[in-house]
């Protein structure tokens, strides 16, 4: 039972991070490899707001979320906007370079020492008992909750709200959407905003769960196979991909060897690329048949 809980928590972590990859890719066909760094930046944003809103933890948390959203818009306006129309590889490399820049800036501003936002907020992390002897901590539970809320919100947004429908249109065919009068720049900015919001949430919760330091960036990279396995332009696929990879990881740790945990996501990714490169629910594109 505890294994199932572990799988659920890891799935939520990967799913939260993966949906950022998916939103940006689906809308603008750009693979944002800076997502790990943006996640870390979101967590550092929480650290900053804790210092600003001393004694008002809830306000600090909300302000941090707002800050993450704003950062997404800024990233688009300052950098990615100029890369529209360029080759896709160039845009991806721009995100990689952005990631490096952000990592360097983070060390410059905050230094390499580990921080503990949970202690700074003054919150506790109680443990809840579940049936069959399993246990889950409050923050792990909120990770699961946050993933559910984010995905439900995104599904509702994309399906029912006018801007969501515009976003889907822009993702399917930018040319036609632009001709229809949809402002692509606003849509892309919105996509980046949502991506950093969800990524930042994941980063903040992870920082609260353990600690805040630079190594969070690598976790962003580990969640990347989850997005790909499910299909880079499908949110439902992201959940399923996260589930598959999390399950594989936890089960291999439990029953085979903990040493493989690092490399399992990439083996699954490779297997998926060989068998079905566009992922489980992705659309076939850019692929040849040999």
């Amino acid at each position: 039972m505890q294994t199932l809980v572990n799988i659920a928590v890891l799935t939520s972590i990967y799913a939260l991070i993966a949906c950022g990859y998916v939103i940006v890719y689906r809308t603008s066909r750009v693979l944002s490899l800076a997502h790990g760094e943006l996640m870390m930046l979101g967590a550092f944003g929480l650290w900053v707001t804790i210092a600003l809103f001393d004694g008002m933890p809830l306000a600090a948390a909300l302000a941090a979320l707002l800050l993450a959203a704003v950062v997404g818009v800024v990233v688009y306006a300052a950098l990615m906007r100029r890369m529209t129309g360029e080759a896709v590889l160039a845009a991806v490399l721009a995100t990689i370079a952005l990631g490096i820049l952000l990592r360097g800036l983070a060390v410059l501003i905050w230094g390499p020492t580990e921080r503990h936002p949970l202690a700074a907020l003054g919150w506790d992390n109680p443990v809840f008992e579940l049936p069959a002897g399993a246990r889950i901590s409050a923050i792990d539970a909120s990770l699961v909750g946050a993933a559910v809320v984010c995905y439900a919100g995104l599904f509702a947004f994309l399906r029912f709200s006018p801007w969501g429908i515009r976003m889907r249109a822009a993702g399917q065919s930018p040319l036609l959407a632009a001709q229809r009068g949809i402002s692509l720049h606003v849509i892309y900015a919105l996509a980046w905003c949502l991506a950093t919001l969800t990524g930042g949430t994941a980063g903040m919760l992870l920082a609260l769960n353990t600690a805040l330091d630079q190594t969070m960036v690598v976790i962003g990279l580990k969640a990347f196979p989850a997005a790909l396995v499910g299909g880079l332009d499908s949110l439902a696929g992201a959940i399923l991909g996260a589930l598959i990879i999390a399950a594989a990881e936890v089960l291999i740790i439990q029953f085979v060897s903990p040493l493989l945990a690092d490399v399992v996501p990439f083996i699954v990714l490779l297997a998926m690329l060989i068998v079905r490169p566009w992922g489980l629910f992705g659309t076939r594109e850019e692929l040849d048949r040999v």
Partner: protein
Amino acid sequence: MPQPHSSGYFRTDYADDWRLLQTRGQRGAAAVGLVLACVFPLVASAFLLDLANQVLIAVVGAVALMLLTGYAGQVSLGHAGLMAAGAFTTGILARETGAPFWIALPASGAVGALIGFLFGLPSLRLRGLYLAVSTLALHFIVIHAGQEYETRRGLSSGVVIDPPSLFGAELVDPRLWYAALFVCAGAAVLFALNLLRSRTGRAWRALHGREPVAEALGIPVAGAKVSAFVIASTLTAMSGSLFAYYRGFVSSEAFSLFLTIQYVAMIIIGGMGSILGAVLGAAFVTLFPYLIEMALAQLPGGASMSSLVFAVNYAAFGLVMILFLLFEPQGLVGIWHRLRNWFLLWPFRQRPLK
């Protein structure tokens, strides 16, 4: 092949067509360059020689990546994994069997070719991003294998390799290394230039341009893709082997994703689609951190700044890459061409069509 840049040069036989250095100017420039390269180790300090050696090793790797991504258009993010494969092969052979370098180097190349074949198989089905991602996945798997080897053999600080001996003399002096590496880098560049003039090179260029058209013209697309991966990987693995010999040891921590990004930055900053770009990019990216340190040392501030210097390096690298991507997509070669055209066309001016 390189074109004459001024008028008055006529080719009178087929041999002229094939020459790498066609005009008096090109021959003169090459001669001057060779002389400077020979004089350099005699006057440079050990530190500068070490930098030059690092640049030469990087040139081999950058040329390989340029062939693969710049000319054949196959995106590969597994470069560090291939270098690691070459380096580890050398390390394992040197340690377990004591093989001399003239066995280990080709063996590393062979291992590189094999792994390159594996890296290249996805390229038959995937393109663009998906191909890049598959190479990324393979990179992690190779690094993991290297780590396992290190731990199983109890080598927590990496595999130590004795310096190679060439004609009886051990290569320890940086000047000897410079000579050896210059020969290697020169061989790699010549090999690349000649390969690009051959059928394989033309097949790659066609592949990069429009794949269905290349297929329609009768070029075996699958064969060309795989050959691109195999040849580039062989070169890369050899550059990894040189790296291992030069540093005297191999450790899986040296081959991180950041190394791949550095090589990709080399070909982007250098300018895609040009061997000269690979060389310039390799030099730029290798020397960049030292330039930043020197620049920051000039600023007033002293000791308190020096802990900032280190983080500034990282941020500056990302910033420079972004600036090149945004404002100078043709890279250093583009700048060089603009400069050269200005001189060639003077007093006329040419505005390139945007």
